[in-house]
Every structure is written in structure tokens, then in C-alpha cells.
């Protein structure tokens, strides 16, 4: 493709194959509607649909409206500065999104976080996961016109954000894991509050079921809508709860356990149907499993208090003041070494299961203070393709249903 090298009249506007920017003939009875990017039901993206009557015959997901050159920005920053940067892909899922980056760098450094730090990471990851699922429920709820399901999960999400705030000091952008450990220990009485929140959430899930998932109106909207068959799900390479709802067993926590997920007793629910309703149930079941994980983590943390949360390589360079603060406040101060950290030459690869699916980081170091290359493949970027292949054949009113059930998050996809 010749792109913008245009002598006048040679390369027309139509030759630039930017979705939506070229015109072409569509069928005689078709109607082209641009859903987004400024539309109450689109998010930061555009879906171009062509409809025949009320039925979508063609759909073009057009993403990239919130592209922020994350990967390139990362190359210009010191290693530690990548953590606050990359968590801006999905700020309500911050720990899950940055964890594989931290783990990849740890691989290059040849260190591993202490056990307590691993448990703390899992703790925040699962809190994030629940909060992110609730966020998705809220958006999904308002997409099918259920305003109560919009407000309830956003309200209950506040419980988890409050806990994360207490643990890390920030509501969303926690910047919690650092190379070789985590930044803070749990505050006193945290685990008791956590257990209360777990019990509360179990009750609430039952109420969600009553007002939303089992509500006949909602059920009619979701059942057999947006079916992703098993083979198509594998073929398109979608990931996360959407993949598992289509009957494929793939969860990074199960297939390639990281941190302490192989020591915890939990289930990976796999639904068979692959429709929008199965995807909702998938998320409900996964929240239940996350609650189970959190219970075990809380028990473990109570049994093993006051263990180190930062790897010795960093912690032994810490001055006595740092150690005193950790003893009294549970706050592991960063050693100045982090700012000047040189990572040995090499390549590393790490992945994690975020709330929307698998996120992979490929990190390459040339031995300097900054990464040579950080390649990120985020879950939403892989899920976006679904719109193109699943929407045709559905009605216009199914578009928000499918959009919401995929739980697509544009800032994460565009990076």
C-alpha cells in the first residue's frame, strides 16, 4: 500500500484503508451507522455497522482512539518508572496489569519475591479482579438498560477499592508490586475487614442474580445472544472469561501458575454455552472463586506475620531507618538503588491473568538503566476482534449486549 505518498490524483482518499475514512459501495438496502466514538453506548472506540432492516450484516470495530504509545514511552524511562506507566492501561485492574512486567524484570534480575510478598500480590490481584468484574457488570447493566445493575456493582466496587486503598494508599493506581516484593505490608485489622467484605459480597452476588441475571427480561436479552462457538473462540484467539465461557479451559493461573496460585485451592469454572448469559455467569462464578482465594490468603497472612516483603538483594542495602519504618509502619521503603537499577542483558517473558484475560509482556534489556523493548499484548486487544465476527446476524439492539458481555475496555486495548 502506498499510503500517503500521493501525487495529486494518483492516490485518492479511498486508497487509505483507514476504517471509516474510505467510502465504498454497500448493498442497496443497507444502512450504515457509526456507533461511536462519541456515543452513549460505544466507549472510546467506534463500531461501524451496516444494517439490513434491523439486522447487522457487517461490523467493523475501529479502535485506537486512546492509543498512548505505552510501549515507546516505556523505552524512555528507567525500569521502576514503567510500573506506574503500564498500570495506566487499565487503572481499575492495576496490580494484574503490572504484575507480569515486574515478574519479567525479576526474571532478568534473577530474583524472586519472598513468599509473603507473593501472597500480598495475590491479595491485591484478586481484589482488583473482583473490582474490575464489578466495573464490567455495571457497564453491562446500563448497556441493557438496567440502571440498578449500573449503580449496584459500582457501589459494591467501592468496598473493594476502599480495601485496596487501605492496603496500598491509593484507590486505583496502586503501583503496589515492585521488583523483588511489594511496597507495603497489610495494616492491622485488615484481614478481618477483608473477611467481612467477602461475606458481604457473597450475599450481594445472590441479589445480583435475583435482580439481574435471573430477571426474565435480562435473561431474554442475553440468552443465545453473541454465541462464540468453541472452535471460533480458539481461532480468533480471544482470551479470559470470554474464552472460558465458550468451553475452553485456559487460565494463566491454571496453565502457567505464577506467584502462589498453585498453592491455593480454587476452581476454574468453564461454561459451555458461549453466549452472553454464560459470560455473565462465568464472571459471577469467578468472583466467587476470587473470594475463596482471598479467604485463604487472609488465613495465610494471619498465620505468618512479620515476614520480609522485599527481596534481600534490595533489602540488605536499606539503611536502619528503613528497617525501623518497616517494623513500625509495615511500609517497605524503596531503596535508592531502584532509581539507578541496571537490569542484566537478556530477554524475558511473563504473563498473567487479568480480569479481561491474558496479558503478556516481552521485556528485553541491553544491560542499561532503561528497557530496550517492552512489548505488551493486552487482553482487550485480543478480544476486540470478536465484534467483527460475532456481530453480523444479530439485531442492532444486541450490539450493546455483546459489547457489554465481552467486557471490552478500550484504554487497555489501545495501550
Amino acid at each position, binding site marked *: 500500500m502506498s499510503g500517503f505518498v500521493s501525487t495529486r490524483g494518483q492516490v485518492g482518499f479511498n486508497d487509505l484503508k483507514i476504517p471509516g475514512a474510505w467510502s465504498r459501495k454497500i448493498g442497496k438496502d443497507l444502512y450504515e451507522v457509526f456507533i461511536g466514538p462519541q456515543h452513549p453506548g460505544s466507549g472510546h472506540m467506534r463500531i461501524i455497522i451496516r444494517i439490513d432492516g434491523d439486522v447487522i450484516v457487517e461490523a467493523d470495530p475501529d479502535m485506537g482512539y486512546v492509543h498512548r504509545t505505552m510501549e515507546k514511552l516505556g523505552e524512555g524511562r528507567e525500569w*521502576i518508572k514503567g*510500573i*506506574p506507566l503500564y498500570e495506566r492501561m487499565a487503572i481499575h485492574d492495576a496490580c494484574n496489569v503490572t504484575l507480569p512486567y515486574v515478574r519479567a524484570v525479576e526474571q532478568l534480575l534473577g530474583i524472586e519475591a519472598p513468599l509473603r510478598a507473593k501472597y500480598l500480590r495475590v491479595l491485591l490481584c484478586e481484589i482488583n479482579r473482583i473490582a474490575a468484574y464489578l466495573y464490567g457488570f455495571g457497564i453491562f447493566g446500563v448497556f441493557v438498560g438496567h440502571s440498578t445493575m449500573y449503580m449496584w456493582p459500582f457501589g459494591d466496587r467501592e468496598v473493594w477499592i476502599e480495601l485496596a486503598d487501605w492496603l496500598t494508599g491509593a484507590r486505583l493506581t496502586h*503501583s503496589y508490586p515492585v521488583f523483588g516484593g511489594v511496597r507495603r505490608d497489610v495494616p492491622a485489622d485488615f484481614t478481618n475487614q477483608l473477611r467481612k467484605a467477602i461475606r458481604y459480597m457473597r450475599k450481594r452476588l445472590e441479589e445480583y442474580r435475583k435482580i439481574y441475571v435471573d*430477571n426474565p427480561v435480562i435473561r431474554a436479552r442475553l440468552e443465545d445472544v453473541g454465541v462464540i462457538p468453541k472452535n471460533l473462540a480458539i481461532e480468533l484467539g480471544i482470551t479470559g472469561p470470554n474464552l472460558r465461557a465458550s468451553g475452553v479451559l485456559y487460565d494463566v*493461573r491454571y496453565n502457567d501458575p505464577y506467584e502462589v496460585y498453585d498453592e491455593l485451592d480454587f476452581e476454574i469454572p468453564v461454561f459451555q454455552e458461549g453466549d452472553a448469559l454464560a459470560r455473565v455467569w462465568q464472571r459471577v462464578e469467578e468472583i466467587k472463586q476470587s473470594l475463596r482465594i482471598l479467604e485463604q490468603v487472609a488465613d495465610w497472612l494471619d498465620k505468618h506475620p512479620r515476614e520480609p516483603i522485599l527481596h534481600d538483594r534490595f533489602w540488605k542495602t536499606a539503611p536502619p*531507618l528503613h528497617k525501623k519504618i518497616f517494623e513500625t509502619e509495615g511500609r517497605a521503603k524503596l531503596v535508592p538503588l*531502584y*532509581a539507578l537499577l541496571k537490569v542484566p542483558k537478556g530477554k524475558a517473558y511473563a504473563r498473567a491473568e487479568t480480569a479481561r484475560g491474558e496479558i503478556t509482556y516481552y521485556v528485553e534489556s541491553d544491560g542499561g538503566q532503561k528497557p530496550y523493548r517492552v512489548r505488551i499484548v493486552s487482553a482487550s486487544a485480543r478480544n476486540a476482534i470478536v465484534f467483527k465476527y460475532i456481530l453480523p446476524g444479530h439485531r442492532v439492539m444486541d450490539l450493546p449486549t455483546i459489547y457489554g458481555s465481552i467486557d471490552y475496555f478500550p484504554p487497555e486495548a489501545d495501550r
Partner: protein
Amino acid sequence: MVPPKPVPKTKPRRGIFHAFKGNLEALMIGVKYFIDPKRFTLIYPKEYNKLREGYRGFIVLIKQKCINCASCARICPAAAMKMIRIPEVDEKTGKQKVKNWPVIDYRRCIFCGYCVDVCPTEALYHVPYHDVVYQNMAEMYLDLESFQKPPEYKAAEEGIPVRYIVDEERGLVKVPYKEGEK
């Protein structure tokens, strides 16, 4: 050591009376919350959330503790913390000399708290609030003087402080903040 295990599931079947039961359940739960809303909305200016100690709010410098090491400026991911050169007179020798002091630009700050955590002498600390109003952009670039004072917190004058605790029945519960709590 109990590894995770996959569990195949199917969505619950729809019974004969589903339409009746489902509608009834949904209406009942709506009525239940209509009678007892269990709300935990913060009516903001009238009451405000007294954040816990350890919250990563605005940052204040204790100049006496600062050893001019520039660790904070070096680790700042957003380049909000900068070292500025200020000439001053040494008390002992009486000589003119130039020292580097950190200042912060709140237009750039992302409140990650790296600077506070990296400071070897605890010369920086967070104040546990974040709702501060600046009149214009230039004011957000603090100089050394204003960096040493906690920012003015207007909400504190108007509202009553509350604190959220987790509750089993109601999710979060607002309790009035008592002086001296952490």
C-alpha cells in the same frame, strides 16, 4: 499444596415457572431496597472522607531532614519532582554556596509515592487528603517555601469527617471520625 482445578459448568436451566418466579424475585428485591436503601453515599461538602494514615495524598517536605540527595527527583516517574539550585550562606563558615532542594509540580504528579518511599531520611511525607483546589496552573508548581507547608484543605472547614468501615450487611458504613484515630 492444592492446585486449582477446572470445573465444567452450565448456566442454570430455565424452569417452567421461571418467568413468574424471576419477575417476582426481581420485584421483591426492588421493594426490599425501596424500603431500606442501605446507602453509603458520601454527601461530599457536608461530610468528607477522613482518609487513613498511609494514604498517598499531597506531599510535604521537611527541610531540616533533607540531605539534598536528589533520590526523589531521580525516581519520580512523571518528572514532577525537580531539584532547584538555591544559593545560601553556610552558618558555620559564612561562605556563599549553592544547594539543591526538591520542589514539586502538581501538574505532573501522579501520587505514586515513590519519592516518599525512596527518601532515605523521611524528609517527605504524605498528607492524607487529595481534594485541594488551586486557582491556576502556575500555583500548582510549588516553590520551596510552599512545598514545606501542607496544602490548604478547604473541605475540612465545611464538613464533618467520616470514615468508612466494611460491614457485612451494608457493605460500607460511615462512622464519624474520632480525633486521634489512625
